């Protein structure tokens, strides 16, 4: 697949959305199902600078809107500019931000149960389907058509992540796929090339290890990383109709053997074994030269290890081509909100060209809107591979019951790494767990 420059003509940008849909089974995971659905409206404005519109709904909306999320300190500070811009544009509506810095999922569940959760809250792709299937979120299709917001303004895999039974329940605030972050100096010293296939990855890691004398790649046994190899082997969690689990496929077994093989061959190590909290920490400390991480790595590096050099490249491709998981968060409206109109205006602004632009300047994640791509890349040119991964990234969603499945699958992977079970048996256990934990309702 050729690398597309982000500074493309509008047609190619639309092409970016359509090809994202075309990529194999993974998209079905996200519950959207409509592979053919992503047609950009022919008349859509192709401007490379985002066009800001004024919400029609805002004309009848007023009052207070409570917004909550798990923003960290830097993001909260940045958001103050967003709130200021919002009050200027819509003086009738007051936004009250109520951050929940830790135990976010626990707290909003308690608030939802009590009926007093904020009107607008952040929903991550991991549990979005659990919420959508239980009617906790308000569908926004009507608001979108009233205000002339098209789904094409956002990357399709992200829209799919928040679509349930053909209705949309949130707009993506930002996202990040996983790419390869590496130390160019270490690569040069070892004479290693940036790998583009699984075999080249083995070569590169071996050269790095021989040069430095220790394993140079930290990889933890987690489902959230296993999916990298799964997608690259052409596998998927479910069939396109989302009625059957497909983790017993040959591709799934190949993927697990490849990922576990790196550990068995001494080319990867869990981060705890080398004294790091997570692979990003291992890279930042200089213990490793390669990390498979998302955008979240860079603010952590900037604050804890600002002198660490890095370069970014796309992940090596597997037998079925390139693949990478996408993680995203949305702003969604609570189904029981007392002020849904104002809540929609807030969501629209936060994810619209003005609000999202200010928020994305922090570089914590990639904006969910293609029209902000160019500006973002001007700020962070070295992160281009993340944008390019957007053409083949697949949103990671397991379906209702997915949280439990992820915990159980992580435990199985941990016992595989501990040598307590063989890879094929582990794969079978993961499949059985998926079948029992996840409730597939079909799309």
């Amino acid at each position, binding site marked *: 697949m050729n690398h597309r420059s982000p500074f493309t003509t509008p047609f190619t940008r639309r092409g970016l959305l359509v090809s994202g849909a075309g990529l194999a089974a993974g998209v079905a995971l996200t519950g959207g199902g409509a592979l053919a659905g992503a047609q950009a409206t022919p008349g859509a404005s192709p401007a490379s600078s985002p066009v800001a519109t004024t919400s029609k709904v805002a004309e009848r909306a007023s009052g207070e809107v409570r917004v909550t999320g798990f923003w960290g300190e830097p993001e909260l500070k940045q958001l103050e500019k967003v709130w200021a811009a919002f009050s200027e544009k819509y003086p009738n509506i007051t936004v009250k931000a109520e951050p929940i810095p830790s135990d976010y999922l626990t707290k909003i569940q308690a608030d939802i*149960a009590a009926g007093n959760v904020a009107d607008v809250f952040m929903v991550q792709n991991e549990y979005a389907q*659990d919420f959508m299937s239980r009617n906790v979120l308000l569908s926004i299709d009507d608001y979108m058509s009233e205000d002339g917001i098209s789904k094409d303004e956002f990357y399709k895999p992200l829209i799919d992540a928040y679509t349930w039974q053909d209705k949309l329940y949130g707009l993506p605030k930002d996202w990040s796929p996983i790419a390869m972050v590496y130390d160019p100096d270490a690569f040069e010293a070892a004479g290693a090339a940036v790998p583009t296939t699984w075999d080249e990855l083995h070569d590169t890691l071996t050269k790095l290890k021989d040069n430095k004398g220790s394993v140079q790649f930290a990889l933890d046994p987690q489902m959230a990383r296993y999916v990298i190899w799964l997608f690259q082997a052409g596998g998927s969690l479910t069939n396109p109709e989302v009625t059957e689990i497909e983790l017993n496929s040959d591709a799934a077994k190949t993927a697990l053997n490849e990922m576990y093989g790196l550990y068995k061959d001494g080319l990867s190590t869990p981060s705890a074994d080398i*004294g790091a909290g997570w692979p990003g920490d291992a890279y930042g400390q200089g213990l490793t030269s390669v990390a498979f991480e998302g955008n979240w790595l860079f603010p952590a590096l900037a604050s804890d290890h600002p002198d660490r050099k890095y370069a970014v490249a796309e992940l090596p491709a597997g037998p079925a081509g390139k693949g990478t998981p996408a993680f995203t968060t949305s702003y969604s409206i609570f189904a029981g909100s007392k002020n849904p109109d104002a809540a929609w205006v807030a969501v629209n602004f936060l994810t619209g060209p003005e609000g999202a632009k200010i928020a994305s300047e922090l570089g914590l994640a990639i904006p969910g809107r293609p029209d902000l791509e160019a500006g973002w890349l001007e700020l962070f040119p070295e992160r281009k591979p993340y944008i390019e991964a957007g053409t083949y990234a697949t949103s990671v969603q397991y379906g209702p019951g997915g949280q*439990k499945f992820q*915990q159980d699958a992580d*435990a199985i992977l941990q016992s595989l790494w501990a040598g307590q079970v063989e890879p094929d048996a582990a794969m079978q256990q993961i499949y059985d767990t998926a079948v029992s934990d996840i409730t597939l309702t079909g799309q």
Partner: protein
Amino acid sequence: MQLAMSRQRRKPRNPTATEDAIAGWIFIAPAIILVSVFVFWPIVQIFWLSFHEWSVITPEKPWVGLQNYRDFFHNPDFKLAFRNTLWYSIGVVPVQTFLGIFLAVLANQKIRGRGFFRTAFYFPSISSTVVIAVIFLWLYQQNGLINFVLRKIGFSPPQPPWLANPKGVIQMALDTVGIHHVNPWFAGPSVALLSIMMMAIWTSMGSYMVIFLAGLQDIPAEVYEAAALDGANARQQFFGITIPMLRPVIFFVVTLGFIGTFQVFDSIYIMAPGGAPAKTTLTLGYLVYQQGFQNFAMGYASAVAIVLFAIILAIYFVQRRIIGRGDQL
């Protein structure tokens, strides 16, 4: 004039029994109300909830009868959590009881710096469990202080490092004599769980020391003198006098110990969330949290909580049989 004088001279009569009782109730009313609202009522509600299904984020609570309880037999998580919790309790309670008695006897001696030692041993018990857990999280790192000391004295630290190691310790011991792959129920607590147990013992032995100290001081010195006159040595005095006279305190400490260890949650949440590695640190208390707040199954979590309550109650009765309360505590 006579009337005024008689009023002055009239003595206040003693309160009747009824007035006493009413006054008593009024004084404890605030405490009763608080405890009822925040302790008794939630327990009743949880019992009720255990017969329903509830995902927390939706208001519907359909009745499911005994299904949540029946699920225990099919659910590997519950068996795992029960097993881990059992190992945790069996490992922690005897050791912390014994160390409590040991430290109390030591701290009861008339040595210099006795006050300092009592304070030092007691200090961890009054610190926040969360703070201690975070500190131990750092101590147990691959390059943390514990491994550093181990390497210095010539031992090689466990690989993977402590909190990431799912191997059962009994299994590891049996491996050295060539017995591999023993039934998981007998593989013992994992190294990760053992790390948390050691931290728990270190934290709690001080508070049990204080309880035993109080118990020791209840034993009259004359008994020891009499025994010494009869020719009993220190060891005979310890096992013949100290332990038997401490029986009610031992019963109290062991009960508290089991209640506390069966409900362990804080340290697991900080040091090994998710029951990592490989669910070997998943305890019943953590299972309740996980099912209720992460897996959208609050009804099931309530059932686990009720079963936990039943188990602890059963242990209390078994203990009472075996150790006996001795005298009234």
